[in-house]
């Protein structure tokens, strides 16, 4: 099936993976469904699939087509074929009169085929769906087919959502979205629609299982990890100690299987960062064990965050244990050095900066051994500006 460039309507900050750079093919002319003209007997042999311009269709003769008017000096003008212009000249004519008719409804399908990103066509089609009391089940079949062809288009998902709302029937959604995700497990539109359906119609029950299956297939699927968090936070929540333990175990197991996985570490930290990263019983020890056999930049960053958390909470206690603080600080700074010099060198300057900031905050009267800034402002730069080549 020939496809136009997949572009959302909102380029400037659109889901930018889902932008113009997909495969581009020119549309084939024979994809248009034609209408057989009401020819007299001598044209009996006319090919019924021959495409007929709207301007040549007798049942459209009453309508004056409206061309696009870009004025004397158009900018970024798109060079449309005759067929394209013909369909849209008649679309513009219908719009101007706000015509509510079957022929208008049929034309919107042609217009969508040519450009499924035209949000005005979709809006007009919705107006007609309601004005003509069209069969919404059939519309669901239609929009299903369109999304299968163009799953990274904003308008088609929005249209589907509207139809589901009108029908007040989400029963096909989870299966449909699962099918789209089977083609691209990280399709942002699909996940968004899925979250909306689940939240709106309270379809939480099987979602954790769905997420686990996806994570079995690809433990690095960040969208699935996000969905896991979404489901749990809206059902049991994370405050339940049993749930928290289970999730921590789940993370650690996934990390053992695939250590270099930012998503798993982000999930672990995300759950715990406001619950006392350094005070989860036994966690620090487990992570220190993993450091020997399953190390990664994410593990080390997590350790750093643990030490920072313990520095912060101990500094708020009545009686500050200075020895303990010194040890935590030393360990944290060692991690920074390890990351900067060896394990995460692309972020060298950042880890050095974090080390300086931590030392400035908790170093106390130690007297630095190097010329580090004592400025407690975390954002004071002390590295040399980078020069290009």
């Amino acid at each position, binding site marked *: 099936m020939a496809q136009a460039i997949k572009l959302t309507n909102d380029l400037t900050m659109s889901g930018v993976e889902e932008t113009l750079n997909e495969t581009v093919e020119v549309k084939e002319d024979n994809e248009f469904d034609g209408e057989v003209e009401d020819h007299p007997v001598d044209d009996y042999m006319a090919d019924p699939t021959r495409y007929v311009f709207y301007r040549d269709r007798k049942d459209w003769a009453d309508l004056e087509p409206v061309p696009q008017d870009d004025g004397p000096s158009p900018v970024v003008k798109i060079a449309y074929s005759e067929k394209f212009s013909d369909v849209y000249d008649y679309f513009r004519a219908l719009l101007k009169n706000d015509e509510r008719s079957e022929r208008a409804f049929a034309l919107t399908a042609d217009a969508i085929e040519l450009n499924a990103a035209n949000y005005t066509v979709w809006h007009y089609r919705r107006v007609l769906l309601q004005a003509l009391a069209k069969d919404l089940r059939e519309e669901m079949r239609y929009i299903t087919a369109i999304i299968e062809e163009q799953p990274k288009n904003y308008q088609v998902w929005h249209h589907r959502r509207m139809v589901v709302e009108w029908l007040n029937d989400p029963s096909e959604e989870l299966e449909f979205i699962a099918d789209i995700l089977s083609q691209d497990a990280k399709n942002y539109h699909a996940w968004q629609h899925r979250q909306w359906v689940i939240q709106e119609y309270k379809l939480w029950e099987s979602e954790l299982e769905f997420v686990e299956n996806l994570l079995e297939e690809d433990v690095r699927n960040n969208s699935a990890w996000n969905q896991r968090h979404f489901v749990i936070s809206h059902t049991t929540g994370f405050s339940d100690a049993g749930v928290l333990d289970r999730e921590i175990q789940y993370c650690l197991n996934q990390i053992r299987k695939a250590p270099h996985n930012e998503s798993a570490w982000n999930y672990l930290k995300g759950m715990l960062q406001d619950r006392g990263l350094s005070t989860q019983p036994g966690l620090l020890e487990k992570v220190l064990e993993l450091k020997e056999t399953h190390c990664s930049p994410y593990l080390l960053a997590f350790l750093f965050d643990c030490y920072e958390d313990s520095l912060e909470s101990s500094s708020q206690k009545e009686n500050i244990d200075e020895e303990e603080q010194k040890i935590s600080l030393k360990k944290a700074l060692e991690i920074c050095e390890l990351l900067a010099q060896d394990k995460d060198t692309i972020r060298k300057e950042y880890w050095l900066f974090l080390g300086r900031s931590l030392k400035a905050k908790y170093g106390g009267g130690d007297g630095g051994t190097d010329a580090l800034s004592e400025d407690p402002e975390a954002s004071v730069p002390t590295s040399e*500006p980078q020069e290009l080549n």
Partner: protein
Amino acid sequence: SADAEQIDFLRDRHVRFFQRTLQVLPERYASLETTRLTIIFFALSGLDVLDALDMIDRNMMIEWIYSLQVLPTEDQSNLSRCGFRGSSHIGIPYTTKGPGVLHPYDSGHVAMTYTGLCSLLILGDDLSRVNKQACLAGLRALQLEDGSFYAVPEGSENDIRFIYCAASICYMLDDWSGMDIQKAIDYIRGSLSYDNGFGQGAGRESHGGWTYCAIASLCLMGRLEEALSQRELDRIRRWCIMRQQSGFHGRPNKPVDTCYSFWVGATLELLDVFQYTNFDRNRSFILSTQDRLVGGFAKWPDSHPDPLHAYLGLCGLSLIGEPSLRKVHPALNITQRAFQHLQQLQQTWRDSSGSCLRQH
């Protein structure tokens, strides 16, 4: 050496790429019809970053952009639909003057109003033909209870992208009556994910583009440190800086893509930590997506270039200080030169309204 040749920056190719973009595109670009004004913005701002605007017929462009303004009708019944269109696709006859034409389906689009205003500024226009009050009325009509915005008054999806457009519009027009700032802040905060990036809305996966929209919006509103605590800001810095792999990607475990050198890079710049990224690896990646034949940049190496990636690739290079590129204002996403023009304009607006007050 051959390596150095491969990664040199081909300025003239990019100038020609944008010039061609401004002329005619083939039919396979049909899906861009309703967003043509954003394409103009990429090309004009791209030429501005390249310091190559002198080859543009500014007046011609300015007229065409003003023809896209949805102006109030005689009876002002369409104020909630005012702003700028993405193109002439609805079929309104070409005009740059009011009053507006009554049409059942004609309305502005928030991203087009945003890029329209930016484009006019880049071209040196003084915005005197922008009906500011109508634009702001159109903007107010788009905001939902939860603080997010629709793109169009007929309804559309609503999310953080359009908050960014709205904030940019209010910032440029120097008038925040176009939006309820607190509600927008609430929505932005609600979009902060457990992993400390921002999603398109609450519960959604964090993403470099939406994180840019969140942080840039707060900066434009002047509310960054009011809306987010120091701890939250540090966590967001961490999420953003972890996006660098060579260039940047938009989500954990996704491939790098040229445009994130700007979305994430500019966010890091706004958060004062862009200096701690690796400029060399970033530059090498961006240039690996440069199309040496037709100019422009693509999302990945050995892919087709397009106006969005061409523009944002340039902006990514500008952030790291590529010589011969103008500096870009990281929140407004126009050159500092265009931004200074805006500041001068805003000063004259304030001066003239001040003198009105003094006269009465």
